[in-house]
């Protein structure tokens, strides 16, 4: 199974806190943006309402002014003189004369038009015949049809013509109580008017006639494909959407459809003022974004610092703990309890729990070891018990090997290996029949071959128990001789492990100093002498030398119980055995 390294704790906390902060900030930003949008929308709608009020008042003034202006113009003496002269002379003149008279009127109209620059200045006779037209847009004025001229006390009114919408004021031209005709002054609601309204209001202007754009200060793309439902919505709603942008909208003027005069009358016209909500909201949202940016920077920094600090308070004790644990695993020293850091309660609890657990694990391990050792010992005892002559042999070899080992300055681990290995060294004899093993007389060659198999058998038995593996060399090689004449492999000199040589010597010494069915026990001195004789060839000389040192001065003391009880450093695992 592939194992991928998980991220460090600090990465986790960083990601978690920063993600949380980012989420919260996004939510706040969303709320702020919506809030700004809503309040700006309300503000723009409200502002436009006030603007509409002002503009409506202004429109009233415009109408009054237009009316006043045309009233003044109607009292222009030369214009009146021209019209009156026309009427007086028309009765006595031909068509050429009429043209002259009309030219006189046209000249007077032009003189006025030059000064006041109206869009249309028109004079008609009392019968409705057009006597003259002047002004910037005189050419577009529908002279072919009679404009329904309002009476002089009426406010200015509007006419919709094919060429545009006009605000119109008409008054009669009266001389000495006689109505000579009608003077009309008209100003178009055109682009110039729209931009004038826009300049005054700071909002956009849109003039629609029959749903068609007559004039507008809106960006041209926002009016592309202006739909009928949008036009309808403008008349009713406070806010409309044009080309994806929201506009507050107010109706400034409504010019109702006119029906009486054919040729010039169209459907109704509307003048709207519009103010872009988006354009107003944009700077406020930008400002909010800038502020949010600074807040976000601070929040992210604080969150990062806090999460790093938090993760360190947790990760550091854990790191310490894990370092202690790995140290423990490396040294295999499970005896010392871990120390608590005192930083984090949970980590300390973990340490304490671990220590408790390790105590019980240690206890269990010791129990297991002692159980093993007990079993091995029982096995060795059982083996020895098969032959009354070899009773206690394994115990004695073990004790003697320890004594030798100590004299050779072996360390505790080697001594432990030696002690158990010596106990078990003849375990392979378990498979040899009593007939061969306890034969009183000399062995035949076949029998001796059987006997020689016991180290290999013992090694095979031990191999099945992993715990006993360190002792295999002792069991397998305790009959090898430095001269290579030993069995089972015929190893030589330094090829033979020291522990095996020690057990070999101890085994031989115990065999010599023990009684056998075919001979009595010999003294320790005799045994040592015998060993010295064969030292170098059959026995390792150094080991024999160590044996000599290890033996107590008292030759009688061939039971080595006193030797074994001498105080020696013993590994922990063996302490349980003693207990």
């Amino acid at each position, binding site marked *: 199974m592939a194992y991928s390294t998980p991220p460090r704790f600090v990465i986790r906390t960083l990601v978690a806190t920063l993600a949380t902060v980012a989420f919260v900030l996004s939510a706040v930003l969303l709320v702020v943006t919506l809030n700004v949008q809503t309040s700006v929308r309300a503000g723009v709608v409200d502002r436009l309402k006030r603007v509409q009020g002002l503009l409506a008042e202004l429109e009233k003034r415009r109408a009054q002014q237009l009316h006043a202006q045309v009233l003044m113009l*109607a009292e*222009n*003496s*030369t214009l009146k003189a021209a019209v*009156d*002269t026309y009427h*007086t002379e028309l009765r006595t003149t031909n068509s050429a004369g009429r043209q002259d*008279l009309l030219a*006189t009127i046209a000249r007077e109209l032009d003189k006025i038009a030059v000064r006041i620059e109206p869009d249309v200045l028109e004079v008609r006779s009392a019968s409705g015949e057009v006597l003259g037209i002047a002004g910037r847009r005189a050419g577009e004025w529908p002279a072919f049809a009679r404009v329904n001229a309002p009476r002089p006390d009426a406010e200015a009114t509007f006419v919709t013509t094919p060429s545009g919408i006009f605000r119109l004021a008409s008054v009669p031209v009266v001389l000495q109580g006689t109505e000579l005709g009608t003077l009309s002054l008209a100003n178009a609601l055109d682009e110039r008017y729209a931009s004038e309204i826009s300049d005054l209001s700071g909002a956009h202007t849109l003039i629609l006639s029959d749903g068609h754009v007559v004039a507008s200060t809106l960006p041209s793309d926002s009016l592309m494909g202006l739909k009928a439902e949008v036009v309808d919505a403008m008349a009713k709603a406070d806010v409309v959407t044009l080309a994806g942008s929201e506009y507050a909208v107010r109706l400034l003027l409504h010019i109702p459809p006119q029906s009486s005069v054919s040729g010039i009358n169209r459907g109704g016209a509307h003048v709207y003022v519009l103010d872009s909500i988006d354009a107003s909201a944009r700077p406020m949202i930008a400002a909010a974004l800038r502020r949010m940016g600074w807040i976000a920077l601070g929040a992210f920094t604080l969150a990062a610092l806090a999460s790093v600090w938090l993760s360190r308070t947790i990760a550091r004790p854990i790191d310490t703990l894990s370092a202690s644990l790995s140290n423990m695993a490396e040294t295999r020293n499970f005896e010392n309890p871990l120390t608590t850091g005192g930083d984090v309660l949970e980590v300390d609890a973990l340490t304490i729990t671990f220590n408790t657990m390790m105590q019980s694990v240690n206890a269990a391990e010791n129990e297991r070891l002692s159980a093993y050792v007990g079993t091995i010992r029982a096995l060795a005892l059982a083996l020895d018990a098969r032959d009354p002559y070899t009773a206690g042999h394994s115990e004695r070899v073990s004790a003697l090997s320890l004594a030798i080992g100590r004299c050779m300055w072996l360390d505790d681990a080697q001594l432990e290996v030696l002690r158990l290995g010596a106990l078990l060294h003849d375990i392979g004899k378990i498979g040899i029949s009593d007939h061969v093993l306890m034969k009183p007389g000399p062995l035949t060659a076949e029998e001796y071959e059987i006997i020689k198999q016991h180290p290999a058998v013992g090694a095979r038995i031990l191999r099945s128990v992993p715990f006993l593996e360190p002792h295999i060399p002792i069991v397998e090689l305790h009959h090898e001789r430095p001269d290579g004449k030993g069995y089972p492999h015929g190893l030589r000199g330094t090829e033979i492990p020291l522990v095996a040589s020690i057990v070999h010597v101890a085994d031989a010494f115990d065999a010599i100093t023990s009684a056998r069915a075919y001979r009595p026990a010999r003294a320790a001195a005799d045994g040592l002498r015998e060993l010295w004789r064969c030292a170098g060839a059959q026995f390792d000389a150094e080991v024999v030398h160590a044996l000599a040192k290890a033996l107590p001065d008292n030759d009688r003391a061939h039971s080595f119980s006193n030797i074994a009880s001498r105080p020696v450093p013993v590994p922990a695992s063996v302490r349980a055995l003693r207990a």
Partner: protein
Amino acid sequence: MFNRVPFRQLVTPLLVLGALAVVHVPDVRAARGYGRLTGVVHLVALSGTPLRSGAYPSRRVNPKTPDAAEIANVVVFVKDAPADPELTTTHASISQRDESFVPRVIAITRGSRVEFPNFDPYFHNVFSLSRALSFDLGRFRKGEKRERAFPHSGVVKVYCHIHSEMAATIMIFDHRLYATPASNGSFTIDAVPPGTYQLSAWHERIGETTKPIKVVVGENASVEFSLPVVEK
């Protein structure tokens, strides 16, 4: 009215006497073979509402003297009279008084002169845009006057630049066969060559009203006009 009633009562017998005198006293021209045109002009009100007055109230500040009777604004003339080679000129006057031209209508022979004295304590002006004669006499103060000869026949309307309500009509004829009715509407045109004519009564608001008439030497041809003019 108090004055007019005895005046009218006085004038009517005088006119009758005058007419008898013309008939019975032999005239030089009559002797040469002329006829005479007499008649009456009646101003009759039209049914319906009168025309609307000015949109602006007049800027006139002085108390206004009563308008001359509308009959004074009527001129009766022979429309198709031939040009008179022995035409004599006259010297007429139109005053500027109380922001009005007084009288408002005069008739003169071609080549006659008209003077315009100013009696108002403010400036006046006289100008005309008429084809018969266009002129501008400029502005002049009280006590001053301007004069102008009218060398072409036709109608000349004169106005004041300063006061747009002021207007007067000067009718210039190539002959002397015209008359201004008296306040009772009667008029007489003497020394009319015999023949059939178109006799016109002209009023500034309604223009001409023409009737055919036959003039016989030594006889009195009578005609009666009814003009639809509302008395103000």
